């Protein structure tokens, strides 16, 4: 029997995968390194911060053995900035995803965040002020970068503020549900998230309107995993419908083109004979 699920990941699966995102914690107890399939976790020594996968961070939080450091983009000022971009700067598009992370090479030059970087980070990174200095456009020397969203550590304390990462909605909701006391001004964050969600949902609903005149779907750069899971069925349904409605015209257009092409070919053959 065919799998009874729609194509692509469903919201519950997206949320499950999101639990592998790395997040920063402040341990309240010592914990030795745990060997896992994905690698060893760092040994926890209070009060030194460490990055752990979300599922483990949540478990320690529930057992009151750690506090969670919310990613910088989840703070009220950052969310306000993103809402400003979504509504005023470019009301047609989604706000851009985080830029590829850079780090200082110790000589004042920013370098791409290389693959060798593991979960222990924060050191040698120029005080976290990277990213903005390079502007929002991609730096040309980042093309060798192997890490790309959604595989960037974009929810740790070193993540840039002002950009929504791929798993923004799931991370935000999970942290608000289980670590609200670790988030400064949680009620405001919650309200800002609702606004953000609404603005972006409206854009998603309107994303297919240009299909009528032969245009494409709205650029989906910057859209989060949960938003994609929610809207995938609808957007693909509209695209497929438009394709079917235009299929016969498209077929006759191609035929005409082919005929024209053949005629051209014949003429040139004649020319050759002359």
């Amino acid at each position, binding site marked *: *029997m065919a*799998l*009874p*699920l729609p194509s692509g990941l469903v919201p*519950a*699966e997206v*949320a*499950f995968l999101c639990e592998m995102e790395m997040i920063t914690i402040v341990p309240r107890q010592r914990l030795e390194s745990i060997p896992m399939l994905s690698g060893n976790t760092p040994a926890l020594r209070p009060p030194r911060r460490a990055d752990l996968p979300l599922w483990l961070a949540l478990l320690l939080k529930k057992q009151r053995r750690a506090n969670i450091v919310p990613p910088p983009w989840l703070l009220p000022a950052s969310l306000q900035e993103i809402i400003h971009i979504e509504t005023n700067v470019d009301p047609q598009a989604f706000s851009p995803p985080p830029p590829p992370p850079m780090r200082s090479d110790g000589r004042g030059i920013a370098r791409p965040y290389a693959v060798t970087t593991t979960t222990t980070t924060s050191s040698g990174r120029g005080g976290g002020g990277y990213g903005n200095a390079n502007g929002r456009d991609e730096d040309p020397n980042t093309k060798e970068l192997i890490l790309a969203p959604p595989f960037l550590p974009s929810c740790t304390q070193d993540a840039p503020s002002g950009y929504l990462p791929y798993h923004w909605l799931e991370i935000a909701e999970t942290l608000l549900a289980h670590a609200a006391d670790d988030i400064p001004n949680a009620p405001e964050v919650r309200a800002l998230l609702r606004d953000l969600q609404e603005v972006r949902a409206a854009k998603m609903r309107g994303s297919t309107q240009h299909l009528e005149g032969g245009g494409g779907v709205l650029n989906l750069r910057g859209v989060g995993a949960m938003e994609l899971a929610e809207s995938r069925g609808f957007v693909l349904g509209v695209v497929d419908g438009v394709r079917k409605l235009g299929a016969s015209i498209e077929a006759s257009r191609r035929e005409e083109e082919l005929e024209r092409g053949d005629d051209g070919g014949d003429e040139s053959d004649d020319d050759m004979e002359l």
Partner: protein
Amino acid sequence: MHGDLGNKLVQQAKRTQNLAHLPPYQTELVRAVTREVRDLDKDVAALLEPFQGSFHPTDDQAVACTLLVNHLSMRRNKRCLLAYHHTRTDKLEKLVWKGYDVVDLAGQQVGDGSVNAGGASNVANGDGSMNNLSPQEEDYVRQYSDLLAAYKGQWTDIDLTGSLEPPRDLFIDVRVLKDAGEIQTEYGQFYVRQGDVERLIAQGYLQKLS
């Protein structure tokens, strides 16, 4: 006109797609559609009879047109019949994957534990004593269940018909709804590993507490 009954069958199939259970098999309608096909076939034979096997469409276009209409009507009825049955077997396969067996699906009382553990009797289809399956469909379910059991039997560590929802936690709390006898899992009786008790939850013995 011809094809109207077939259309009714397909409308039934359309409804079936959107239902959780399987509505009763339309024995009468299926019989009527097959009868229509036989009648059409007789008409064709009668139309061709005077020609003694030497019919030329060019000579008698009205007959040619009638023959085409009859042929298309038969073809249409065949498609309706096949699609109706196909929709139902699709649905039956889905229900078997969900853990129903022929006894549940035929709407009969579930016997005591002798039936293999697949019986989700608490959610059996609405109208209890009615048998919604044709005898052929009962047979189909029986054989399909055997096939699925044989297929599943190849893996002992993984339940192919288990839940597709990603787990939120490895362990869950459960409440016992029905006496299921003594069941001891590796970890205890009330705080258990979700994978160990998924089957019992599906069968209605346990309820998961959130």
